[in-house]
């Protein structure tokens, strides 16, 4: 009698599973002309790319992207295993004496987004998280080449007059994979502090001069930690036990993990956080290759950014690039070109509105225009004539100047190099200020308990889709208009959508996957034994 009941059960579960599968497959049956396109590369710009990918799903565009590091992205594009690559640095650079050869397939660079390579850290004074750390470029170089070893080093204290820094060991966390972030950071080190960088490289067994490298050299036993991917390094630093760690990673990752970033000293003597404004200002010093005949068309030279005399500059600002195919080869069909083109039009125009909220900075008008020209070179693209005034890009103005850079607020006086220091927080902790701990130790001690509660209650990210998230701290006014535009693009999040039902079905199926096999096995066994010895 048991068997009939169990059969009913099995049938019920099976049919539920079938219904779920049908629901899944039935959903995206629109826009037949779009075909899936796949890409790989940078994790620096992955947060923005992932958001854009999700946004275009509603149009039926499916973009697959694997954040495996810029070096891997360039290699995979060269070998023809992906349709597009994303990288911070172009082909043709010499790394450890080996030239990264350009691919034989047709390719072009297209800037996708700007951003700041930030220094995310995990540091605690008296049980309370430090959120307002400031460092000069030379101190950053010394930390990441192992010559400053503890947080209470005099050089760091000079940058932070109001912080009584602990004698905790500094643990620099670097990337273990071939990374564009490492390439950007090592370009900075090799340009600005060649002697420190070369000495360090030599210690790590590299041939000098070291120059730009995608693989961060690590000296064994120096107390460095290497992790793979931006998620790996930011995940390591954000583990609450890992006090004393510091890493280089795109600003978005600090926002997502709710951790502060270092304010870096610029040429004008101000310590600046890599906000969308500061990056936009900094990149006005960048030299972009404007020779459209050159294979390196649109690539960047950042020397002018490091030394940009504008006091609002973040010195480690840079662009990220998509490497797009320009010929139909290696399986890149015109259908794929059609899809990739539509995606590119989306992120060059509307997608830029979200850059600030995500932790990046929108592209200026000249690069958007040039990027739109590059899209035409994708085979199979449906050329659109986009009225870029309608893109709502916060950098665009009627005069053609970079509006974002014009509007960028001047850094507060307390962020000037000197005897004082702002107490406001940065990055993912911008709403948590840090108490003055130097000179008034009692205050630091008494605020410890309350401070911790404060920190936990305000860690919620500013990255969501809500409006006005970018205000506060040293940032100044929020970019109101672009946030409003965002809400039109993203489907409303309240109300029961198909996506939510799909998620619910997925959860139910996962539970069924865990529960059903043992259940069925037991039932079958019970049946088998009942047949073997009938009572």
């Amino acid at each position: 009698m048991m068997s009939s009941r169990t059969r009913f059960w099995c049938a019920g579960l099976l049919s539920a599973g079938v219904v779920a599968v049908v629901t899944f497959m039935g959903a995206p049956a629109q826009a037949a002309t779009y075909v899936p396109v796949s890409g790989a590369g940078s994790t620096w710009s992955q947060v923005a790319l992932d958001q854009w990918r999700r946004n275009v799903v509603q149009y039926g565009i499916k973009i697959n992207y694997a954040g495996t590091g810029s070096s891997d992205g360039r290699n995979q594009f060269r070998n023809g295993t992906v349709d597009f690559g994303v990288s911070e640095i172009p082909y043709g650079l010499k790394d450890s004496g080996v030239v990264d050869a350009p691919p034989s397939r047709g390719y072009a660079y297209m800037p996708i987004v700007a951003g700041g390579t930030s220094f995310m850290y995990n540091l605690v004074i008296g049980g309370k998280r430090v959120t307002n750390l400031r460092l000069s470029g030379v101190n950053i170089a010394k930390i990441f080449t192992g010559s400053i070893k503890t947080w209470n080093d005099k050089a760091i204290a000079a940058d932070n007059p109001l912080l009584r820094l602990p004698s905790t060991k500094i643990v620099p966390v670097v990337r273990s994979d071939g990374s564009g972030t490492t390439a950007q950071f090592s370009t900075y080190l090799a340009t600005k502090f060649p002697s420190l960088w070369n000495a360090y490289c030599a210690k790590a067994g590299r041939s000098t001069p070291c120059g730009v490298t995608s693989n961060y050299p690590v000296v064994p036993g120096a107390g460095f930690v290497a992790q793979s991917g931006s998620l790996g390094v930011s995940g390591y630093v954000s583990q609450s036990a890992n006090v004393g760690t510091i890493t280089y990673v795109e600003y978005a990752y600090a926002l997502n993990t709710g951790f502060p970033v270092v304010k870096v000293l610029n040429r004008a003597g101000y310590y600046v956080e890599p906000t969308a404004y500061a990056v936009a200002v900094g990149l006005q010093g960048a030299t972009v290759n404007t020779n459209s005949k050159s294979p390196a068309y649109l690539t960047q030279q950042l020397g002018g950014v490091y030394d940009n005399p504008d006091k609002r500059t973040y010195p480690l600002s840079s662009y990220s690039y998509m490497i797009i195919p320009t010929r139909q080869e290696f399986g890149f069909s015109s259908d794929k070109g059609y899809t990739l083109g539509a995606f590119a039009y989306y992120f060059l125009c509307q997608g830029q509105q979200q850059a600030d909220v995500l932790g990046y900075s929108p592209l200026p008008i000249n690069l958007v225009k040039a990027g739109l020209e590059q899209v035409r070179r994708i085979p199979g693209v449906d050329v659109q004539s986009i009225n870029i005034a309608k893109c709502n890009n916060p950098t665009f103005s009627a005069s053609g100047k970079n509006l974002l850079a014009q509007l960028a607020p001047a850094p507060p006086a307390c962020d000037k190099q000197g005897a004082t220091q702002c107490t406001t927080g940065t990055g993912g902790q911008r709403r948590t200020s840090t108490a003055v701990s130097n000179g008034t130790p009692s205050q630091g001690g008494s605020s410890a308990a309350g401070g911790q509660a404060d920190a936990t209650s305000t860690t919620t990210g500013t990255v969501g889709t809500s409006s006005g998230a970018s205000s506060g701290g040293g940032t100044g006014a929020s970019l109101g208009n672009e946030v409003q535009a965002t809400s039109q693009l993203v489907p409303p999040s309240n109300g029961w959508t198909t996506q939510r039902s799909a998620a619910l079905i997925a959860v139910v199926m996962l539970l069924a996957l865990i529960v059903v096999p043992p259940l069925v096995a037991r039932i079958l066994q019970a049946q088998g034994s009942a047949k073997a010895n009938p009572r």
Partner: protein
Amino acid sequence: MTTTIPVRPEQSESVSARVLTHPSGPTDKIYAAVTRTSGLIVLLIMSLVGVFLAYRASQALRVQGLSFLTTQAWEPDSRNFGIAAILIGTILIALVAIAVAVPLAVGTALYISEYAPRRLKQTLISLVDLMAAVPSIVYGLWGLFFLQGNVTGVARWITSYFGWLPFLRVDGFKNSDPLAGPAGTLTSSTFIAGLVVGFMVTPIATSVMREVFSQAPVGEREGALALGATKWGMIRSVVLPFGKGGIIGGTMLGLGRALGETITVYLIISPVFTIQPHILQTGATSIAATIAGKFGAASAFGTSALFAAGLVLFLVTLVVNFIASSIVAKSRSGAVSDA
């Protein structure tokens, strides 16, 4: 006390096998041919893999020669690379994994086959099989984002009290320093990577061992109990000796998997390319993780160097499996275990 248990006389060996006179029909012939071919194909594929690895590795091996075996570095583009550190790192991670997995697997297998109530047994078996089916990236992410933060306290305790043992020492770690976090000293170590890999290989080892334990002869079990043995006594005198082959087989199977485990190790460790004998200290390395980490961004010569590392891993795994199968084949339960 094991001598009190009468051992069943091995009759089958004294009597010579009866000769089969039935003529083999076409079905038998086809069956024999098919099985023989598939056996040969497996061998052929294995040797082709070896040849391919050796061929691709030859460029790097020719440059580096014998120093490939002794160099502790991995900078192929500077022509400074070798297997010494990463091979030892691989073995250390695998040993930690086995040290975790074997006691856990023996205990689980014994519980399921001997102690678990009948109703629970099948559920437990399915659960263990399900654990074996969890992808290694899931274990890796769990290890990186959850376990690592919570297990450094254990590492701290071990090194505080047993740090006088050379391999448990952690350089730069002072227990007296309350400010010192685990970062840079106790995280991303051989120990943590080995721990997670150990959890991964446990289910595989468990299912091999459980299968063998459950086949311990009922007659001998009943004999032991009839002679007054307790349940544990019966297990010690009948099940464990019978299942020795399965225990060793399961261990070796787990070791083989632990040696080749890639993504979990890659996620957790902080790669260093010198010999790191301190298993609790930050910095570890393994061949598979090095290949996974360096392959995407490698130059042509760097790829060849990685193939050379892969060749070494291939040979080591082959040797481990040969030893395992020969041990298992010699033991009494060897014929029935599938290791």
